[in-house]
Every structure is written in C-alpha cells, then in structure tokens.
C-alpha cells in the first residue's frame, strides 16, 4: 500500500538533493574539471590537459612545495594514528568499565576541547608554548624537565610535531566517543560470561571487547584520515597561510589555500588550485577506497 506518487517523491527529495548537488557534489566535479584548464592574465580559460598536474608534481618551482606538504600531511596523519586513537581507545575503555563513579563527569570534561574552535585552541597553546610567557617552561619545571623546553612552534624541526600534538589534544574526544558508543553495544552478558570463565579484565579487553569493535576502529581510522588530509584551520590560525617556519608546517590544505588565493608574493590561480584540490581528492579517495575494501572483509565479524 505504499503507493507514493512521483511528484510527492520529488518534493521530498528535491531540496536536499538540490542543495547537496549544487553546493557540494557539482562544485567538486567542476573543480576536477577545472584542473585541466589554465587561465591567462585576461582571465580567458583554455584547456591544457594534464599540464597543471605535471607542473605541480614535477616542476621544480612547484613540486618541492607540493611534496613537502604531502609528506608533512603523512607525518601529521601518522602522529594522529599513533596518539589520538590509542588515547581515545584507552579513555573509552576506562569509561565503559562497570561501576565507575563519576564516569559521566569525566566524559563531559574530557570532551570539552573538541567543542571549541581551533582558533581558540591554537592561540592558547601558542601562549602556553611561548617562551615569553613561560607557562610551558614552568609546567615542565614541575616534572623536572625545564631544560627540555624550547620554542618548539618556532623551530623547523619541531613545528609540525607540536602542531600535530595540539591537534591530537583537541580531537581525542571524537574517537573517544565513537569507541565508547561501540563498547556500550557489547552485550553485558557476554562480558559476564567471560568473567565467569575466569578471564581477567585485560584478557576480556583484548580478546572480547577489542575484536567486537573492529568496525568502529576502522571507521575512526578513515575519519582521521579524511580529517587530517583536509586539515587547514589550525595551521592557518597559528602560522598563517605560509605555514612556517619555512613551510615546515605546510599541509595540503594550506598549500591548496595559497595556490588558490595567492599569498604575498605568489599570485592566486583558481585553475592550479583546482588541480591541487583534485590531487587531494585522489589521495582521500584512495584512502576511502582502501577502507571500503577492508571493511568488506572485517564486517563479517560482529553481528549480534
């Protein structure tokens, strides 16, 4: 009896599909197309095939910056995978322990940074790490590591790492919540059965809980991947579009911005920007594709 008329269906679907297509999907496709063009000074566009890509990837003036940004992005992602997700996993596991008093309070408090704007986060960490203010130094002094302190944000060797850590600090909340939700879904009786069979808390975690949340861990990984290869806000707020010092903290996002808009000496070029965006798209697509392939395999696991 579900007879719906075509026009009614259209009414339901049209607004969402239109807005989504117009402002998200089609622009993306158009950007892909634009990457094959170039514009001369008069603004006239002409088709140039893969020239833009050749330039970005191989031309000495351009490619160094591109590959630098790409490599930085990979490092950025690895640091997140190494820190953000394991910490989120640890916190979520602690939250899901039965009978933990104050769990809700902890959750609320620890999730707070995730809610705040990156601009705020970036600035306050800049202050804390600033050698002028000395808070960072004082804090390290508390654990006897005062000598260790250095203007990390200003040093080429440590800028990216520091910014990555700040980003990890802010976004731990997301894997934490997602994994926590997944752990909640594990039936309590299954855990009790394991306990009744003599399994220790640690064994229950590794052999029962963890395998049952593999799908969520996969999801968290791909979300981290997409977010990291799209990252821009933090670097821009703290370091500006030049992502200094000396492009040490340049990511694909900031590279894209500079290419597109131009910055200081460099003139902006929508077509080159489009090409960069397309490359970013391909990278992300590769990651998402890999995820779906692996999900097909892993998804045969849990289903109760």
């Amino acid at each position, binding site marked *: 009896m579900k007879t719906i008329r075509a026009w009614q269906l259209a009414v339901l679907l049209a607004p969402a599909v239109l807005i989504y297509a117009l402002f998200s999907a089609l622009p993306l496709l158009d950007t892909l197309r634009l990457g094959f063009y170039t514009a001369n000074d008069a603004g006239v566009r002409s088709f140039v095939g893969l020239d833009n890509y050749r330039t970005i990837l191989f031309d000495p003036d351009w490619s160094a910056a591109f590959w630098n940004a790409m490599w930085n992005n990979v490092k950025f992602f690895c640091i997140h995978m190494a820190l953000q997700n394991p910490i989120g996993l640890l916190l979520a596991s602690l939250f899901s322990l039965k009978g933990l008093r104050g769990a809700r309070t902890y959750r609320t408090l620890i999730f707070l940074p995730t809610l705040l704007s990156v601009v705020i986060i970036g600035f306050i960490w800049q202050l804390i790490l600033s050698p002028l203010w000395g808070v960072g130094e004082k804090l390290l002094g508390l654990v006897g590591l005062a000598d260790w302190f250095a203007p990390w944000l200003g040093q080429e060797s440590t800028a990216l790492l520091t910014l990555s850590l700040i980003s990890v600090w802010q976004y731990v909340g997301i894997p934490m919540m997602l994994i926590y939700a997944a752990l909640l879904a594990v039936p309590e009786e299954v855990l*009790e*059965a394991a306990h*009744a069979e*003599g399994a220790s808390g640690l*064994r229950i975690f590794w052999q029962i809980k963890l395998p049952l949340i593999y799908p969520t861990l996969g999801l968290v990984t791909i979300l981290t991947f997409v977010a990291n290869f799209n990252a821009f806000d933090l670097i821009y707020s703290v370091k500006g579009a030049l992502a200094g010092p000396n492009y040490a903290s340049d990511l694909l996002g900031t590279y894209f911005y500079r290419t597109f808009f131009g910055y200081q000496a460099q003139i902006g070029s929508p077509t080159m920007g489009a090409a960069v965006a397309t490359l970013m798209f391909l990278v992300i697509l590769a990651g998402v594709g890999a995820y779906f392939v692996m999900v097909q395999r892993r998804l045969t696991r849990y289903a*109760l």
Partner: protein
Amino acid sequence: MAHVNIKQLRKTYDGRADVLAGLNLDIRDGEFCVLVGPSGCGKSTLLRMLCGLEEISGGELAIGGEVVNHLPPAERGIAMVFQSYALYPHMNVYKNMAFGLKVAGNSKSDIDARIRHAASILKIDHLLQRLPRELSGGQRQRVAIGRAIVRQPRLFLFDEPLSNLDAALRVQTRLEIAKLHRQLAATIVYVTHDQVEAMTLGDKIVVMHEGRIQQAGTPLELYQQPQNLFVAGFIGSPKMNFFPGVVTRCDDSGVQVEIAGGLRLLADVDPQGVSPGAAVTLGLRAEQIREGLGDGQPLRGVVNLVEHLGEANFLYVTLEGGHDIVVRGDGNRSVHIGELIALSVQSHAFHLFDAQGQALRRRNPGNLQAARRLAED
C-alpha cells in the same frame, strides 16, 4: 563433591533494604534444584551470587564443603548458562567452548578432547566451525550448555535457559536438559519463572517471593502440602481456587468453614492452630472438583466460560454465593455456557490457610492421580 550449603545468605545494595534476607538452603550432590518465583523475587540474584557475579552481603555460601564467599567465579568450580546464551559473537562454536579452558591453561589436546566429547553429547559436532549468528536459537543454547559442560564443573547454573525459545522447542529442550542431568550426574541449580518447568525438571523446588524462600521441597510436597498461600497459588495450573471464610467448627473430623453465601464446607485438616470465629482461607484445586453429584460435599453454580483442551475442559463457574472458580472437567462431556452445573468435593481435597496465610496440615493429601497427571503435562 558438589553439595551446596547456604547459611543466612543476605544481599543488600548500598544500605537499602535487604533484597535477599537470610536464606538457608541445602542442595545435595547430584540434585536438580529449581529456583522458581515471580519477577523480582530474587531468584536470579541468588543464582548470580552462587556464580560469583554478585557480592555476598552477609551469610555463608559453601560449595562442596568449601566456603566460597570471596572466591572469583572461576575458582568455585561452577559453570553458568546465561539466559541469552552470551556466546562470544566473534568466535566460532569451537573457540567459544575452548575459551574458558584456554584461560585455565589446559593443554590443546585436553581442550580438544573435552570439546568433542561435549559436542557429541549435545549433537552439535557439525556446528563447531560456525559463528553464533549462523545458528538457530536452540543450537545456540546447546552451545552455551556445551561451553559449561567442557569446564567439568561440580555445579551447573542455569539462568532461565528456556525463556527465549518458542513453545515447541521449549518442551523438547526441557526433556534434553532432564536427560543431560541424568547423563552427567551433576548438581544443577536452575532458575525459572515457569512453575510447570520447575515441577517437571526439579528434584527439589525452591519457591521464592520477595527475597525469601517460601518453601523448598519435592514437586509432590509442594503440590500436596503448600505451606502458605503464596506457594499454593503459585504451584499448579490452573491456579488454586481460594475462598475466604470464617471457622464455624473444629473437631476430629476437620475444620468447618463458612464462606460467602452461607455455604459451609468441611476441610480434612489438622484443627490445631485455629478456633471457631477465626478468619481463614480455603483452597481447592480445579482438578479435585468432581462434576456431578458424587459422594462429596455439593456445590452448585452456573457455567460462564468453557476452555476446551481435548481430554479436559476448564470450566469457569460462578457458584451460588458469588464465588468464581475454575473446574477441570472431562473433555468428553459437552458443557454449555449458562448451564447449571452440580459439583462435588471431598473434604480431604481442601487446603486451609490461617489468617497469616500459613497452611494447616492436610491429613489425607492423597489423590495422587491428579498430582501425577499434572507432572506429566
């Protein structure tokens, strides 16, 4: 040795009123003990305390003569079958059954031997490589039982194992559990809310209500000599008919009670403990009321509703005087709604309960036929 001794066992949560209040119970080695009662009576809590999943607030629990209050589940020599089976969803049947043994450190060959043995008993050999989600409800349950068997515990704990099965499967599995009990010669503590399950499976039945043991005994004892109103109303299907009344006479022939409508009925019970004028409750089982005028005390009424079960009818009758009762009648006799019906009851069929709901001793609880019929249902 796997006898269980429970002394003054208590359970409270954070200083609130006792959920379980000073329970005493002894279970012999090899006995099939059923804990039965309505929701909230504490039977599951007691089971979980036996298992070690709930802390014991007071009293002593001993398994095989060893006090186990502070021992974790794995060291008590018990194995539990959960209501929802609680199989590990990501492990196949073989690994599910092997898990506990691996934790205990058994050798691979030993584990394999135990699993194959249990699988053959439960007829799940062909399912060993399957995942739980690929199994039917009945199969999952057998895996859950298998998981318990391989641990070779001295005490099996079952938490309402049949409640998730459909009716036909339930009856079949009941038989299998009974068979398993004999095969393994194990001590079993079994929780259910279904009194028919309790009566058919248990060697010893423990009726619980509001955190207390109402009565513990064999099925026959509970059927023939329920010690209080609760047990009398809980055991037996359909539920016992109750008549509130007042004692008019007590002597050697029994206790005569006048119920609403002026009807006077004689119960063959030991008159000790009541005197004329006392408020009492008469109890009468549906299957002990005879149709037609026999040589018992007569009752008359009008039939309101008839439920046909084939070899029996359940007649819902309103007696003169206004009481609504249920009568188990002969299925071959056709009865109509609105029909006037004559019934008779023997004095030894009655149960009598004093003002506190405690039962007076029946002197001739006989009529074993009815009890046996019930047990075979």
